[in-house]
Structures are given as C-alpha cells and as structure tokens.
C-alpha cells in the first residue's frame, strides 16, 4: 500500500475557495502566516469572505492584502493592535469584526476540528465580549457557551510536508496552524519543503495527513516571510 499524493499547484489549491467562504488562516504575526496562499487568494479575488485569524498581520502584509482588496466582509480575531489599517476599516464599518479571547478562539477552532458543537468557559464572562452569549449552569457554576468554529477552507503554513499531507511546524510558527488544520472542509497547506513519504518520522508529525487536502510546495520564500526590521 502507498499513501495518496495530495501535492497540487498553488492555483488549483486556492481555486476550490468560493465567494462568501469562511477561511481560517494560520499564523501569529509573521511566523506561521501562509503568505503565498494569501497572495494567490488575493490574485484570484474571491469576495465576501469571513476570515478567522489570530491577528490581522501588519499593514501591507499577509491578510492586510485581503482587507485592502475589499475581499473580507467579516473578521473573527483576537487582536488588531499591529495593523492600524484594519482598525480604520473596522471603525469605518467596512469590515465587521468579532473579537474573541485568544485561547478561547483556539479552543473554538479545536472543538470545530474535533466534531464538537461548542465549549463552556468562564473566560470573559464579566466582559462585554460575552454579554450577548448563552449561559449554562454546571454544578452550580455559570459558564458562557462559545460555539465551535469550522471553515470552508483553512490556509496553513508548514515547515515540511510529505505528499500525503503529514505536516510539521517549527518554533512559534506552530500557533494556530495545527488547530485550523483540523477544522476546515478543505485544508490547504503550503510547505517550505515537501519531503518523500517516510522522511517525516511518524512520531514527529504534528498534523496527521488525513486532515489535509492539498499540499503546495513553496519555492524561494518571499520577503514577507523574513525577519521584520522595525
């Protein structure tokens, strides 16, 4: 038996995303952001997207290109502090923004990836973030119901991939990637290198191949992946 080959072209991988789709995007700042997949989504121009990402990168980088191109209707995120452009769009009402506590965003995605409907938490219970949310009582304690999140597509940045879609990540480029890689109907991974089947040791796989639909090998990395000089 041989595991199936899921390698494909950048164009074909992103062409499976429709207008109005919900798209999860990995990354926390630069590390783990799939800049090449994002650029192809900008080039193809799908519109009316709901984007789920920890942050909005910085102005002129990453998903800021999607925002600038008018492709995003709604953003579910934790923090926009490094992107004044995104904050301006939010304040002007051009994008709808839903803020979520960071670890709760992670758990909502993990729950979606695990086939669950929601999680229960006391996080943010005293804040305006949870003011409109359903509460349930368990053993005399009140919890906020946080709905699980799933997406039509997830854009993932991996360090290495094999053709079946087994992935590994490095350092703080892991962040939301392995969670989002479980939580979408179409999981698209860009990888800095595609290695032969078996080259990624089974014990070292961070995202198992069955979760992944498309593998795109990156050529030379664009300058967006590099160290940001502030």
């Amino acid at each position: 038996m041989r595991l199936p080959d899921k390698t494909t072209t950048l164009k074909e991988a992103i062409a499976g995303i429709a207008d109005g789709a919900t798209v999860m995007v990995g990354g926390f700042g630069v590390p783990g952001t799939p800049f090449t997949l994002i650029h192809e989504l900008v080039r193809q121009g799908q519109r009316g997207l709901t984007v789920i990402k920890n942050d909005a990168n910085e102005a002129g980088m990453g998903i800021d290109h999607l925002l600038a191109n008018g492709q995003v209707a709604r953003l579910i995120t934790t923090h926009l502090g490094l992107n004044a452009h995104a904050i301006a769009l939010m304040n002007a009402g051009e994008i709808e923004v839903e803020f979520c506590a960071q670890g709760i965003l992670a758990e909502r995605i993990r729950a979606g990836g695990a086939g669950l409907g929601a999680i229960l938490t006391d996080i943010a219970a005293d804040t305006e973030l949870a003011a409109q949310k359903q509460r349930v009582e368990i053993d005399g304690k009140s919890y906020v119901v946080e709905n699980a999140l799933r997406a039509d597509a997830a854009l993932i940045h991996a360090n290495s991939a094999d053709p079946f879609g087994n992935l590994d990540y490095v350092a703080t480029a892991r962040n939301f990637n392995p969670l989002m890689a479980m939580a979408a109907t179409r999981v698209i991974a860009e990888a800095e290198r595609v290695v032969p089947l078996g080259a990624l040791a089974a014990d070292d796989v961070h995202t198992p191949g069955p979760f992944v639909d498309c593998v795109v090998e990156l050529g030379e990395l664009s300058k967006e992946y590099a160290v940001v000089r502030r």
Partner: protein
Amino acid sequence: MVARAASEIEPGMVVNLGIGLPTKVIDHLPGDFPVCLHTENGLSGIGPTLPPDRADRNLIDAGGAYVSTVPGSAFFDSAVSFALVRSGRLDLTMLGAFEVSQSGDLANWKIPGKFSPGAGGGIELAQKARRVVVLTTHTDREGNPKLKEACVLPVTARRCVSRIFTELAVVDVTPEGFALRERAEGVSVAEIADATAAPLTVPAGEIPTF
C-alpha cells in the same frame, strides 16, 4: 519601579510578562535566575531578545519581539498555550492598565471610541494567572488617576489584581481596598493619595521607599 517589580518574581515560577513595560522586568533579573517565562504564542522558556541580524524569523514573543530559547524550552500550539494559563500553571502575570478598581478589577483592553484593538490573550492572563500584578503610570497622560473606586472603562477581568507598581508607589489591593506598601524615593504619602481616586489605607509608621 521596573526593578522593584522584578523582585515580585520568585525562583521556580512560571511567569508571563505582558506587552510593553512588563517585558522590561526581565532585564532586572540575574542571568542564572531560575524562572520559566511563558509567551502566549507558544513558548515556555523564553531566552534573550535578539537583534535582527541574529533573529530567527520563526521565533517571536506575543509582542512581536525576536526572542530565543534556553536549554529546556518547549514549543506548543495556541490551545496548549492557554490550557497552561487557564489550568492554574501560570504563577504570575504582569500587565499594563488603563484603570484598576479598589476591588482589583482591571481595565486594559478598550477605550470606547479611541482604542479598541482587541484583548488578545489578556483576558485569560488577567482572569486565570495565580497572581496578577499591574505595572503602570499612577495617572494617565492627562493626569487622571488610574487607581479608582470603580472602573469606568470596559473591564478585562474582575477582582484579579493583587498589587500595583507605579512610578510613585507600590499599592496592594486588599479586602478593604487600596493599601499603600511602599513609596518611591522623594515622593510623599500625600502626593500618592492625591494621585489616587479612591481611599488609600496608609499603615502606621515609616513607609519603606524604593
């Protein structure tokens, strides 16, 4: 004030330092001090910050600074990172503040109409770290006190702050409200009380200085 706050970190602790002033606390600890620094984006065991020419493009802290590892560091995903926070494994966090109430409520994530970038991981840090201390200026840029009877701004978490370090004083949040513990060299108790918009308990005797 930052040096004084550094003494809050005890050997063996797991500590998260919030963006801004708190990250400078680490500069005041000896290089061999036994502590595990955690950052929300998935690292326990933060090492020294690196200049751009020596930085690893995949290794940052939650504030975007290029950091390094130490022997024994671990990387993990964002769910694991906050599992650590919410389950009580984080001994101490140091955070900034817009307002702190006399019952320990913290507001540091939103000024309606002016500043609303989202709270990131701040809500979980404030709500779940075993000890929350605040590093802040005693008053805002307009001179308004940040220590108040009640928060006016949207809160991050309620009844979470134990101690506040400012350029003027060290103030504890007690069941009876704010209590003065230390004053900065050359600052009088009256000045501190004037800059605080809530009752301030002042213990009898000489107030230690820092």
